[in-house]
């Protein structure tokens, strides 16, 4: 694979006040690849995702997604990415179908009724389509927020601790969904503070410590224990 990586981060620095959250971070992610970013709370995982998603501008350094610079062409970047953060971006007082319709309209899409139903079916919410989101479980909300991307078809998925708070069935479903997204040529960056299901999806593991990637290694046959040993080693090194 000699092609240009789908995501390229170079020399990224982000400061808040006097605090350097990220400092000199480099990361490349290719199409069809999933990277799991492991880091302690406050290590800057969420900040990294926000910068990738063009939600905050880097203090220094560049982020390029699908060839577009996030600082100069955020609009073009936003067409390529889907972000699932802790917040699920759904309105509690609207039904699942209404939420989907709203976000699709905002994204400039005009999905037909069949397409909308199809998207909800993909995330297995077709039976809850007309129920208010307020009544949904955490897993259902996350599935609903993923349904938006069934319609919008981004090439990059950014996930903030996607498996946290889900039950076993939802985890399994998400795992399969992410695997098929990858197979379709998409790139995934997901953060986590402790490895669970992420390991199965990730092709690479990146340890975030001291504001930069302290270790970037193929998952290979590493077990969760191995990863945690590596993490302890490198995170302590950096701090």
């Amino acid at each position, binding site marked *: 694979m000699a092609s240009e990586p789908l995501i390229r981060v170079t020399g990224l620095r982000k*400061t*808040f*006040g*006097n605090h350097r959250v990220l400092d000199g971070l480099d990361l490349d992610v290719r199409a069809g690849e999933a990277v799991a970013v492991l880091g302690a709370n406050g290590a800057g995982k969420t900040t990294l995702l926000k910068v990738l998603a063009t939600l905050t*501008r880097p*203090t*220094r350094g560049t982020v390029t997604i699908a060839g577009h610079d996030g600082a100069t062409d955020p609009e073009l970047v936003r067409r390529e990415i889907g972000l699932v953060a802790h917040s699920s971006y759904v309105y509690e007082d609207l039904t699942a179908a209404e939420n989907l319709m709203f976000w699709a309209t905002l994204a400039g899409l005009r999905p037909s009724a069949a397409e909308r139903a199809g998207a909800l079916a993909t995330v297995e919410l077709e039976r809850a389509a007309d129920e208010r989101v307020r009544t949904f479980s955490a897993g259902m909300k996350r599935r609903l927020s993923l349904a938006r991307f069934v319609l919008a078809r981004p090439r990059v998925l950014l996930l903030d601790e996607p498996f946290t708070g889900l039950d076993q069935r939802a985890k399994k479903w998400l795992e399969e969904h992410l695997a098929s997204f990858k197979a379709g040529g998409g790139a995934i960056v997901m953060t986590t503070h402790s490895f669970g299901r992420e390991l199965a999806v990730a092709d690479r593991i990146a340890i975030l410590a001291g504001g930069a990637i302290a270790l970037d290694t193929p998952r290979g046959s590493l077990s969760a224990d191995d990863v945690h040993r590596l993490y302890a080693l490198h995170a302590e090194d950096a701090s």
Partner: protein
Amino acid sequence: MRRLLGGVTLAGLVAGLVMGFAIAPREATQGNVQRIMYLHVPSVWVAYLAFGVVLVASVVYLMRRAEAADRLAHASAEVGVLFTGLTIATGSIWGKPTWGAWWTWDARLTSVSILFVMYLGYLLLRGMIEDRERGARFAAVLGIVAAFNVPLVHFSVYWWRTLHQPPSLMKPGPGTMPDIIVAALLVNFAAFTLLYVYFVTRRARVLRLEAEAEA
């Protein structure tokens, strides 16, 4: 360069004082109190100049994202507020012997006061946002809104105060002023403009140093 500017400014201010106190005569109707004009009127001028600069710098910042423009806007707003405050204070001090009250809802005092609180809000907004980039953006938007509001404030206050009562209170009509007083005013205008430039460049430099210390 900077010393030169500082020196010229100081010389200008001294010249302004000399013109205002030694050379210009006592004004016939108002007496010595009129000499406050040499302080008051140039202050208003600087305030309006400063807020105009905030507008231009804000627009430039939003279009180019040049941090220098943001610092210029910030510095100019701060200096503008400073001079607006001076305008209000000196106007009030002038008003006491002239109108017999520290404060009257005179059209000019009122509109300048509205500007004062408006731009004070601008500085407050800047101080409340941690993220430098976001603070700059929001401040620029506010700077633009506030600047476009200036004429609206001006007209509304003017009509508010003058439409139902004769507009007689305060008219330092330029036509009736002796040349020497006009000259003294002009010298002070020039000196205050220099002072503004001096303050803004210095403040902008401090802001740059702060940004560099953080980054």
